[in-house]
Structures are given as structure tokens and as C-alpha cells.
């Protein structure tokens, strides 16, 4: 599903964010990217949906060499990749329902699809009752659920999550992890960057550890360290 071949990313000023990274992630896997701050986790995530271009190396997503993708095809690649962030990126002037519906509307999904998919996904994340609320009326955990609903409402093949529990307390984080686990069990490949030790240790999934841009460990059913 995802394959990195000798991928490096060098930012201006010779900052090496990723060095000769190689890995192969299968369909339906759940992968943690771990490592200290600045080790290149976000960079790797951003390379996967073409928010950044690699300096060298090749990245394959769903069998396609995304470096050779025409720029007009990038939006269609992204429709297959949901994204969740530490800061949720919700639109504060839209309700919960509108935030999720927005993701379908802007890719031209017809109204009847929006009308059936949005309530279904809000049910899945447990926010049906709050569909009329605005983001600032929700707790952090609830906001992250909305953002997961928005990322998943189009049923992408891949879900990328960059420190989704970074702003949440441990108890709330557990709830978010349950949700991501459930999404993973529908067959969606999940790649999650985190430096939350307890989450990684309890989930026991594949762990890829980064240190100053290099992959130093790639372990099935691993722990944080």
C-alpha cells in the first residue's frame, strides 16, 4: 500500500529531515512512527500525501509512483488518504455536521451521498447528538473525533494521523485510539506519528522508530522502546 525507496528529504540550510528511508507498509496495517521531536515523523507523513516532495528516492502509494503523478492528479490521490492532525484543523464557523459535510462537498459528492454518509460517520465517532454544535463548544477529544470523522467520511484507503493525541489527556487518548483501531479493522491502513509511550506499548502494533531522520528500528508488534 505504501512503499518508500531510499527516500531523503533535505530542507534548505542542509536540514536533513529524512535520510535514506526504506519501508513497505501493507494494506490494512497499523503502523506507529515514533521518535523524539524533530526526528522526521511529520516530514514522513507529509511526504505520503504530497504536501512535500522528497529530495531523492521514490514513494509509492497504492501502487503509484507519486513523484511522477501529474499535478492535476494529486487531488485524486488525496481523496484516498485521510488526514488527522494534532490541532484538528476544524473550521470554527461551521458546525460539526458542516465540517464533515464540507469534505464531501468540495470533492463534488452529490447531496444524497452527503446526507447519508455524514450522519453515519458521526454515529461511528459517537457525536450524533452534537452535530449542530460548533467546534469551540466541544472538548478536545470531541474535536479530534470530528476531525477523524472528516478524514474518514470518504472511506479512504489510508489514514494518516500526526500526533492525534498530542493535545489530549491519557483517558481521552484511549478513546481516540479505540476509534482509530476500529477504523483500522475496516481494512484501512493507518499510519500514526506519536511520542506517546503508553499508547504504543498498550496497542502492540508495528513500530517504525526514527532518530534524526534515519529509520533505526522497524518492528512488528513493537513497543515504544
Amino acid at each position: 500500500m505504501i512503499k518508500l525507496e531510499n527516500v531523503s528529504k533535505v530542507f534548505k540550510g542542509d536540514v536533513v529531515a529524512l535520510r535514506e528511508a526504506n519501508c513497505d507498509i501493507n494494506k490494512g496495517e497499523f503502523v506507529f512512527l515514533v521518535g523524539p521531536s524533530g526526528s522526521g515523523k511529520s516530514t514522513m507523513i507529509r511526504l505520503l500525501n504530497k504536501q512535500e516532495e522528497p529530495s531523492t528516492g521514490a514513494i509509492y502509494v497504492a501502487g503509484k509512483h507519486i513523484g511522477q503523478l501529474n499535478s492535476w492528479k494529486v487531488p485524486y490521490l488525496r481523496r484516498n488518504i485521510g488526514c488527522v492532525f494534532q490541532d484538528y484543523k476544524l473550521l470554527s464557523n461551521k458546525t460539526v455536521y458542516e465540517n464533515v459535510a464540507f469534505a464531501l462537498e468540495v470533492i463534488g459528492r452529490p447531496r444524497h451521498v452527503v446526507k447519508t454518509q455524514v450522519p453515519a460517520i458521526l454515529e461511528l465517532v459517537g457525536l450524533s447528538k452534537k452535530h449542530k454544535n460548533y467546534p469551540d463548544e466541544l472538548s478536545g477529544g470531541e474535536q479530534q473525533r470530528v476531525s477523524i470523522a472528516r478524514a474518514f467520511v470518504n472511506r479512504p484507503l489510508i489514514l494518516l494521523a500526526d500526533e492525534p493525541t498530542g493535545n489530549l489527556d491519557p483517558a481521552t487518548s484511549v478513546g481516540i485510539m479505540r476509534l482509530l483501531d476500529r477504523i483500522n479493522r475496516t481494512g484501512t491502513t493507518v499510519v500514526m506519528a506519536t511520542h506517546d509511550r503508553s499508547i504504543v506499548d498498550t496497542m502492540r502494533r508495528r513500530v517504525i522508530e526514527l532518530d534524526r531522520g534515519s529509520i533505526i528500528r522497524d518492528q512488528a508488534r513493537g513497543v515504544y522502546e
Partner: protein
Amino acid sequence: MAINGNYVLRETTANLTRNITLTVASVLTVFVSLAILGSTVLVRQGAQNATRQFEGGVEFIVYVDADITPSELAAVKASLEDNPGVLRAPYVDAEATYKEFRRLFKGQETMLENVRKGDLPTSFRVEPKDKSVESVQELVAYYQKRPNVYYVSAATEVIREMKAITTFFNNGLSVFAVFLLVASALLILNTIRTAMFARRREIEVMKLVGATNWFIRIPFMLEGLIQGLIGGVLAVGFVFLAKGWLDDLLNRSKGLNLLQNFSIESSDVTLACLVVVGVAITLSVVSSALATRRFLDV
């Protein structure tokens, strides 16, 4: 690409109303610049109608008698063509003369009813080699006395002045209009950039969930186009007003030599409106495209 019309409509109106002060500024600048542009087109056309007979270097017109025989006509023609002081002297036949007459006296029905094609003297439009006043006067005096010549009409000082004044007036206004057009293009550009900046979080989300660039662009480009079109429509309204004022002015100054032949026809108004709307569309599409281009990369 499926585009939800509802979405585009909602977003475009939201943009236009959210930015109301900037929107009004753009619309007004577009309006003023295009109103000036439209007026210059009207004045230019009017002056052209008035001086059309004396276009292309024609300095005087030799009218021949209405009952001239073909051989007499040939003699006049030869005298013009053989004259070393004459560069060109094309003949305007009865048909073309009558057409021009109908144009000049449009709206004056009694005139049109009472004059028939054969009644009008035909003429030669003479372009002399030397266009100085003295040499033209000399030629005019010479042809005035030729047989079968009914009348010689020279490009008077009035017409020369009218040409000079309208050219000067129009060049000045055109420069002014161009500056204002640039200002309105920049204002539209700025309005759209501001709208995009205000909505950068939405745009970011749209890109992440896979909205196409055109889908993101279209509401903003429509916003620019609508500003341009509203300004353009107001300017078209102004062109009609200006036509009314000019007609009034011309009616009141009948007999005033300078404006005698100055006339603005409906085809001139149409031309002015087409120019205004065409420029409005081009201007707003180009500036919207430029404004939204920056947001296309990733």
C-alpha cells in the same frame, strides 16, 4: 469534474458580502474607468462621423454638376489625375453619395423624403501632395473655376481644429482611463487575495481532502468576474446617459459650426458598450486568474 452549483453560489455570495468595502471599492473603480473609456469611444466615433469626408488626407472635395455628361466627367477626372499637385482623387458616385446623405440627415424625414438619388451632386475627394493651407487654397481656387464644377468644399479650419481637439481630448482621456483600468485590476486582485487569505484555513482543508484546484478557484474567480461585470454594467448605463447628454448638447448648439456634423449613432453606442463589457470581462478574468494562481501549488 462535478461542481455543485449550490456550493459555488453560496461561497461566491459569502465572499462578496464579507468583503463589502473592498468589493464596493473595486466595483466603483471599474465603473469609473470603464465609463471614461466608453465616453472616449463615443466622442471618437462622433468626431469620426463628423470628419469622415475628410479622412485619409482628403483636403477638399470637388462636386460636379448633377447633369454632367460622361465625357465632361471624364474631363474633370483627367484634369485632377494629370495635376502634379494632386496625389489621389477617388470619385464618389451617385450611389455612395446618396448613402452618405442618408447617414448625415438621419432622423430628418422631410429632408430624406424630398431628395432622390439623382438630385445630389457627385464628387471627387482630393488628396493633394502638399497639404499646406496656401497650396490647398490655390488648388481650390483653380478647380472652383473649372467648367462643370458645381462647388468645391475645402477642409475648413473648423474641421482641422475639431480633429485636433478630439484627438488631444481622447488621447488624454485614454491615458487616464488606462491608469484607472490598471488601478481597478489591482483592486480586484487585492480583493480576491484578501478573500483567499481570510479563508486560508478552508482552502488548506479543501486541498487536504482532495478538492481540485479549479474547484477551489472558481468561487474566487467568479467573485472577481462579478465585480468586473457590475462595474461594466454601470458603465454601460453611463454610456447611454452620455449619449443622451451629447444629443442634447448637439440639439442646443445647432448652427454652431464646430458641432454641425457631429453625430452619434446607435451603432456607435453599441460599439462603446461592447468595448466596455469586453474590457470588464477581460480585466476581471485576468486579475482573478492572477490572484488565484499563487494558491495552486500544493
